[in-house]
């Protein structure tokens, strides 16, 4: 049927226009403030230049190592069926919601001075390895991005039609050359750029594991310029450099591919007639150990003393939960308004935050508010705002297709009944969007809960969030309290996600 129906747009558009305006103001306002204060690239010191170099180098190495390890793991998952496979594939999505600082504490328990690996090496009479410095940063980045890489590459694998494998097996053709290498050639570049971009903007890892002349990233240098030397002009210049690098890479990522790590259909196993079962399971086991052991260590070490936590931790936890809820509400409202509006501007606004980092936005906002108020007084609202802007791209990715689907299914019925504007939103869209809205709120809340970025610039004294409080405990070598705080943080992050995701689903009709 020639059903090329011209849409009669009955959805609310003006809130989306306002959301576009707000997002642009809060993304570019800080940028302008930074430009205002920066003193030009000529003022970059040697230390700054080495920070630029280290930032790019560690991101590239992290991406290469993540992908190099992900390829055999993804292949193993693509061709083996075993009990727990589905759980493992689901868990590969979890690091996205995992607070960075919690994972770092877990990695310290495994790779740190008194960690499992070093005890093992010590027992064998081998020298210790240190997790601090460049390789620590890379280990942490691989921890976070290996799962992402596996999911993206696994998608490539399961997208190869099974008939092709049958054909190749029948012809005795080399599967690697005729099927797998071409697939990887199309999937790997996009994966590389995405991971590269993530590692460019990861601040908490560099803050905790990096430092010193040979392991300082640009963002860490910005933080130090603010907190240690209070060199605002220098910080602004570095911020500008960071934004420029990220913008170039983000454009590259946008051009190369539109990756969707949340894609479904990873549960298909392709029947194959090659490869060693033991080799595959060795890869799967190693990857699972690498990813699960740090989390198990956090739970084991944190559990015993969780009731002895100082009250400051619980207060910080409450503060973080409040910020997370405000941030989640704001993100969902912005994203819904944007999704209802549609259009290219919305695509731009939904993608732009990927090119910014929370710390960079925070730096700009700091420069804006600093002349007027004590930044520490606005630490919490600024954190909530920045967190929700940073979560926007991920939430939009879930919400935009859902809105389009509801409109495709029920738009004409709503039009025919004259349901427009708020009535349409209330009667048709909100009830139909409960699941994606709940998921979106959960993602935004968990991301905000675990964020250790902008808050480090703004907060002093008694305005810490839970991740910041935990970082302070680690800095004071109160590792027991830090471990228990990590467990609380982990529980709250995943708990908030679960409550939002499930709670909104209850009674949601198919």
């Amino acid at each position, binding site marked *: 049927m020639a059903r090329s129906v011209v849409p009669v747009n009955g959805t609310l558009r003006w809130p989306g226009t306002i959301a576009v305006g707000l997002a642009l103001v809060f993304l570019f306002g800080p940028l302008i403030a930074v430009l205002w204060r920066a003193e030009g690239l000529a003022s970059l010191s040697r230390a700054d230049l080495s920070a630029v170099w280290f930032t790019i180098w560690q991101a590239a190495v992290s991406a290469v190592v993540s992908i190099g390890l992900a390829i055999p793991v993804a292949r193993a998952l693509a061709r083996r069926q075993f009990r727990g496979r589905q759980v493992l594939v689901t868990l590969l999505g979890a690091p996205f919601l995992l607070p960075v600082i919690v994972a770092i504490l877990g990695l310290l328990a495994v790779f740190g001075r008194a960690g499992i690996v070093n005890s093992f090496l010590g027992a064998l009479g081998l020298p210790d390895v240190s997790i601090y410095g460049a390789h620590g940063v890379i280990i942490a980045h691989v921890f976070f991005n290996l799962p992402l890489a596996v999911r993206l590459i696994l998608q490539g694998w399961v997208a190869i039609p099974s008939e092709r494998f049958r054909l190749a097996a029948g012809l005795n053709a080399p599967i690697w050359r005729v099927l797998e290498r071409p697939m990887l050639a199309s999937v790997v570049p996009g994966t590389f750029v995405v991971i590269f971009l993530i590692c460019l903007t990861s601040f908490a890892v560099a803050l905790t594991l990096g430092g010193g002349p040979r392991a300082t990233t640009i963002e860490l240098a910005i933080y130090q310029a603010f907190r240690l030397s209070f060199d605002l002009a220098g910080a602004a210049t570095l911020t500008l450099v960071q934004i420029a690098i990220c913008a170039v890479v983000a454009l590259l990522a946008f051009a190369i591919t539109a990756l969707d790590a949340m894609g479904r259909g990873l549960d298909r196993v392709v029947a194959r007639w090659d490869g060693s079962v033991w080799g595959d399971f060795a890869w799967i086991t190693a990857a699972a150990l690498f990813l699960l052991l740090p989390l198990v260590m956090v739970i084991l070490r944190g559990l015993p003393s969780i009731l002895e936590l100082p009250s400051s931790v619980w207060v910080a936890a409450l503060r973080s939960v409040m910020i997370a809820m405000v941030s989640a509400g704001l993100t969902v409202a912005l994203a819904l308004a944007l999704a209802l509006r549609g259009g290219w501007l919305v695509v731009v606004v939904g993608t732009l935050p990927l090119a910014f980092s929370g710390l960079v936005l925070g730096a700009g906002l700091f420069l804006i508010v600093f002349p007027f108020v004590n930044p520490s007084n606005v630490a919490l609202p600024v954190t909530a705002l920045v967190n929700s802007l940073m979560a926007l791209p991920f939430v939009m990715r879930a919400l935009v297709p859902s809105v389009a689907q509801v409109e495709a299914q029920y738009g004409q019925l709503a039009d*025919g009944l004259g349901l427009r504007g708020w009535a349409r939103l209330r009667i048709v869209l909100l009830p139909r969007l409960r699941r994606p809205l709940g998921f979106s709120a959960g993602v935004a809340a968990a991301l905000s809960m675990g964020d250790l970025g902008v808050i480090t610039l703004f907060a002093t004294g008694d305005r810490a969030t839970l991740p910041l409080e935990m970082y302070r405990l680690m800095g004071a070598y109160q590792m027991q309290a830090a471990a228990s705080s990590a467990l609380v943080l982990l529980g709250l992050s995943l708990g908030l996600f679960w409550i939002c995701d499930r709670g909104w689903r209850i009674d949601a009709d198919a």
Partner: protein
Amino acid sequence: MLTLDHLKLTFANFSLSADLVVPIGGITAIVGPSGGGKSTLLSAIAGFVQPSAGRVFWDGADITQRPPGDRCVSILFQDNNLFPHLSVSQNLLLGLRRSLRFESGDEDKIAQILDKVGLSGFQSRKPAALSGGQQSRAALARVLLGGRPLVLLDEPFAALGPALRDEMLDLCAETLATQGCTILMVTHDPRDAARVAGQTIVVLDGVAHAPAETGPLLADPPDALRTYLGG
């Protein structure tokens, strides 16, 4: 009456023209090969599609530019005629007004209409708890409750079995026609037209022809229609 005044619908590699008048009251069938534009014609009358030229009049008023909800038109689609998250009575209420707030008298009206379509006592059910035939009845009940004078049926009963479909057509004829509605009904089955429609519009080769008496038309169809009918 419904007047399509030199109406032209144009899309990429598709165009349809209609210049005809449908008198008030009774059922008019729209028949023709699939892909010929039967549904598109309904969409244009309902306001989902903007014509590239020409105008649509209802009762002398030009409604070409009015949005679908303001056209004194009710339309039933092939599917998705009910919101699955709303109960039957909430779905019906949307036929009366654009809100889910029940006012005094609403419950009675809804009960009466449900009675008429054979769904007494189904008020609080959700659509998922209804059979296909019952869903059609609930949608029809909303159209009846809305009381708009022009009703467009875009093969809403196509997914039902033949007996159930006949039953629904008869129910439409009984209820809608006795309410004085003007009904335009798309169908790909000439027997549907023969069963309930006094007149038939043939949509063929990019033209919607003026309504003709169904009986004589099907008994002695023009050549192109004969090819489609296969008789």
